[in-house]
């Protein structure tokens, strides 16, 4: 089987899963869970194979499939892996089996439908990442909305209807603007070159006028900013998280939010480089605001899911900074931060789900001294907390350190050129490492330490082997990216360079660190 075919199998395997769940027997839920898990595991194994086969030295699209679809409009079924998506695809496939395993005991209602929805989201997310054609990208992008909507709406908490409507309104609003901008973009490409194409590679060279760029950038950016989310477009996220079942929260924090930052990296900035450069300081400002504002709000939450929800906003602020810096180290840091946040936030949401299954409360005030009650649980919780704080040796440090270093390098250059705004922003961003420790450790202290206190404490048992397996996998990945980030980062480096060239133009290329003398 050729590798390109394997990528197609990876993408379409969830559809097979949906077909399977439709045919399965609702009275035997464990069979549904088991087969779904196996299918996800196969998908991950194939993705891991592709990841290992991915050639870091090849800047082009790898394992690509290109089939004409609507030739008159230049729409094609064009998928493939590149440095932008390779780690995110791996992350998505990695979380798939964990999500199924993590819902084993939590989901007892409509088990078949639930797994069908998990497969559908998986399909849509993978499709969004591997699509190299704007039309295809948009289809997958919109497709993500439906299963997420249903997942929160059917298996969600008490205020699920409010949360779903808010979620859909926010994201649909962004999508419509993106659709309009997309049509205009292809139309103008056709008027200038005479060829209609939706392929990203063609669109990068559209050569739009600055005025048009500004509007299109604004439309794309708004849509992506809602997904990230960037303050002040974030209020859908805490509600969605709180109401979503564990699987929904894990998918949302683990992968879905990265659609926003990925969108900025793959489309928003490189498609409209002039507009993006104009907006650099604004994007950085919003990134810094997200870091600080998200952290401050995480500090005053009483619902444990909301603490992690707001921390997501804060953490992805670093990724935005790294992308806006257009510095090679910063871009790499942004990619790492996306993956790292996917692991730590997913892990923490799993853990919140595990305690909720036991004690049926998300109210922090109900808890205390969990470390005595559930020692194994607490060790995992502590490790994930420290990774979220960005302690060295964990993936969180790799991401934050590189993103901040890159931001600082760009800011320093701007400072040398007489503009110190960015330098101030970089300075404020660094306070995020203090605030991050503040809310997470305060959370950990009230949750894990002190006198033991929890609803139904007398029946509570420590983690099962299944739960330990899920968390151990996540923790292993966290340390892999914290201790040995070189190998994965090599695979993204050429894409980071391409991004830098597309967005930064001549200025950025001249400032590659390779040219710096090492004494």
């Amino acid at each position, binding site marked *: 089987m050729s590798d390109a075919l394997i990528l197609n199998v990876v993408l379409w395997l969830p559809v097979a899963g949906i077909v399977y769940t439709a045919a399965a027997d609702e009275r035997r839920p464990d069979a549904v869970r088991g087969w779904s898990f196996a299918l996800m595991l196969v998908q991950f194994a194939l993705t891991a194979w592709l990841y290992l086969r991915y050639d870091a030295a090849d800047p082009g699209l790898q394992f690509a499939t290109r089939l004409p679809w609507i030739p008159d409009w230049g729409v094609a079924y064009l998928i493939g892996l590149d440095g932008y998506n390779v780690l995110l695809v791996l992350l998505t496939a990695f979380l798939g089996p964990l999500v199924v395993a993590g819902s084993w005991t939590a989901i007892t209602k409509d088990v078949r439908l639930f797994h069908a929805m998990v497969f559908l989201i998986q399909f849509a997310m993978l499709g969004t990442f591997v699509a190299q054609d704007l039309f295809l990208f948009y289809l997958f992008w919109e497709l993500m909305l439906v299963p997420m909507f249903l997942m929160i709406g059917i298996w969600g908490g008490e205020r699920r209807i409010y949360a779903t409507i808010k979620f859909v309104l926010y994201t649909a609003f962004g999508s419509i603007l993106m659709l309009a901008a997309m049509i205009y973009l292809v139309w103008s490409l056709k008027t200038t070159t005479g060829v209609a194409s939706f392929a990203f590679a063609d669109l990068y060279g559209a050569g739009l006028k600055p005025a048009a760029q500004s509007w299109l950038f604004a439309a794309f950016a708004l849509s992506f900013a809602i997904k990230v989310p960037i303050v002040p477009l974030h209020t859908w996220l805490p509600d969605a998280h709180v109401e979503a079942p564990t699987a929904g929260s894990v998918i949302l924090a683990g992968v879905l939010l990265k659609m926003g930052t990925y969108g900025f990296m793959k489309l928003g900035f490189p498609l409209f480089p002039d507009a993006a450069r104009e907006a650099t300081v604004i994007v950085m400002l919003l990134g810094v605001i997200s870091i600080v*504002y998200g952290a401050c709000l995480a500090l*005053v939450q009483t619902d444990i899911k909301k603490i992690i929800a707001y921390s997501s906003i804060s953490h992805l602020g670093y990724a935005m900074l790294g992308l806006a810096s257009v510095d090679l180290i910063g871009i790499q840091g942004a990619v790492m931060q996306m993956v790292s946040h996917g692991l730590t936030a997913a892990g923490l949401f799993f853990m919140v789900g595990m305690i909720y299954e036991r004690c049926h409360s998300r109210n922090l005030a109900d808890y205390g001294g969990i470390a005595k009650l559930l020692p194994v649980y607490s060790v995992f919780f502590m490790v994930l907390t420290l990774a979220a704080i960005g*302690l*060295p*040796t964990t993936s969180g440090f790799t991401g934050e350190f*590189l993103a901040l270093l890159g931001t600082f390098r760009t800011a320093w250059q701007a400072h040398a050129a007489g503009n110190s705004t960015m330098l101030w922003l970089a300075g404020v961003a660094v306070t995020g490492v203090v605030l991050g420790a*503040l809310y997470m450790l305060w959370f950990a202290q009230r949750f894990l330490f002190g006198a033991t206190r929890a609803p139904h404490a007398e029946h509570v048992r420590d983690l099962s082997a299944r739960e330990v397996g899920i968390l151990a996998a996540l923790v292993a990945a966290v340390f892999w990216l914290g201790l040995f980030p070189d190998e994965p980062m090599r695979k993204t480096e050429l894409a980071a*360079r391409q991004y830098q060239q597309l967005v930064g133009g001549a200025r950025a290329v001249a400032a590659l660190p390779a040219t710096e003398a090492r*004494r």
Partner: protein
Amino acid sequence: MLTAIALLPLAGFLLNGLFATRLFPNPRGTRFVTLVGCGLPILAFLLTLDAFAELRAGGYVPLSETLYTWISIGGAPFAIEFWFDRLTAVMVLIVTGVGSLIHVYSVGYMKGDESYARYFAYLNLFLFFMLLLVLGRSLLVLFVGWEGVGLASYLLIGFWFADPEKAAAGKKAFIVNRIGDAGFLLGMFVLYTALGTLDMDRINAAFMASPGPAISATLVGILLFIGATGKSAQIPLYVWLPDAMAGPTPVSALIHAATMVTAGVYMVARMSGIYVHAEGASQLVAWVGVLTAFFAATIAIAQNDIKKVLAYSTVSQLGFMFLAAGVGAYGVAVFHLYTHAFFKACLFLGAGSVIHAMSGEQDIRKMGALAKRIPVTFWTFAIATAAIAGLPPLAGFFSKDEILWYAYASERGGSFWLVAIAALTALMTAFYMFRLLWLTFLGESRLDAHAAAHVHESPFSMTGVLVALAILSAIGGFLSIPHVLEPMLPLPGILASRSGAHLPIVVLSVALGLAGLLGAWWMFGGKAERAKAFGEKVAGVRRVLEGKYFVDELYDLVIGRPLLWISENVFLKIGDRALIDGTLNGLAALAQRTAAAMGRLQTGHLHFYALLALAGLLGALAWGWRHV
């Protein structure tokens, strides 16, 4: 070999943390934990001796070992590399040597604790990160160790986490340290941006070269020093260290006295290439150091908890080290770091032995006359007290004397005011340390009947360590560390006008120690009635000192509460709920009303729909005619 030194304690952490209690049931489990937990640090110490021999045989050419490349971006690698030169050798010997002693002491101290394995796992984890900190060639590796020891400290301060106060102390330590780390990170960013490397020897060389790099040494020096004020508990970030005494006492000895808290001093000495070119930053280091020393000493005088006195004394002694570094005498700073490691470890472990004997009591007002009951503890404690007070010929005398001398006469910022404040502090140090000695061991017994009945000397595993440390506190000063380090860290020149003042400074230094001793004897000897009378006379001052100048309360009022208030009331209530969601809900309501209004158009009459459709069609045609 360097790699092995660093990784041995890590192996200990993994073995004890993951497997010990699972593989072996007690009592074999405890024996396994002890063997691994103490054996591996001792092995690391022996390897360090070997590495030192190799360094000497090679004419002190630094040894280095590359472990692997952490990450390489754009061809610029961040390597994980170990580096072993004179300074590293001194530090690693202290860390593994004193560290091993304290591990051994812990066997007796922690005996019977339900989390014995966890304790040794954490202690080994600490040692691993501390060794990374001092062995790293680049600032990045140093920073990994720097944050890592903070983690270990956090875990060990909150070791008995069921007590919310202890858990809170651990959290406070971590967060206050993080504030410093933010500054440190910025310093690293500036250096990497300007020089393209984080290797410390390269950075020093770049600053030593002429012309130097195009960045301000003072800026970098200050940013890195912010990190040092966190880790080494200097103004304004010292507030975590006294609270850190919530941890087990051997932890206070190892982490919060002998090793971790000196990391900032080590860092400044290591980056001396920057600081010798940063006059402003050096002045700042010296003044923060001397003021911290003074300020902490005044608080120590009024504390009644045996560990709190020692904690403030540590803050104060660290201030002395920074004073030395600030006037360019880096070797002297490391000298004091080295002697302090012995006598302060001895004092803390002695305090641990006292607490052990007193069944957990830490209040010196409830002690007294313990000397005869626990003689080994008393004599070792007394020697260490004399050492910290600077009485000759004990270790502290040599290092403190050198600090006073350079604070006065160094070409790099020596001044009368520095030495005046430092001398006053030295006097107070001798006074509060002898006060501690008197109230704990001498004078009248103030024990209650229950405690008095249970007083007992500690087992040999503890007293043996005390004796070893007391011997080192007594004779350690004869090894002149500044001399050992001089080829690497040259001592500053002496101001010509003050070159004759060394003897008076020595005399002054001894006189201050004796004056403190006599003062404490006079005040606290016998029934300590003079102290009581004096304390009542200055009750106001005493309250302020006992309350530690209310700095914690001030920080809470100025930073803590406003942050929470703004987050809750401005960001959450006004920002998220009123402005953002308010707008959103308003839009939704508007949409609903519009929809309701539009809904009335749907009358259900087919004719009306047809009419609308026709109008639409005509409109479209008209538009098409105009535009196509």
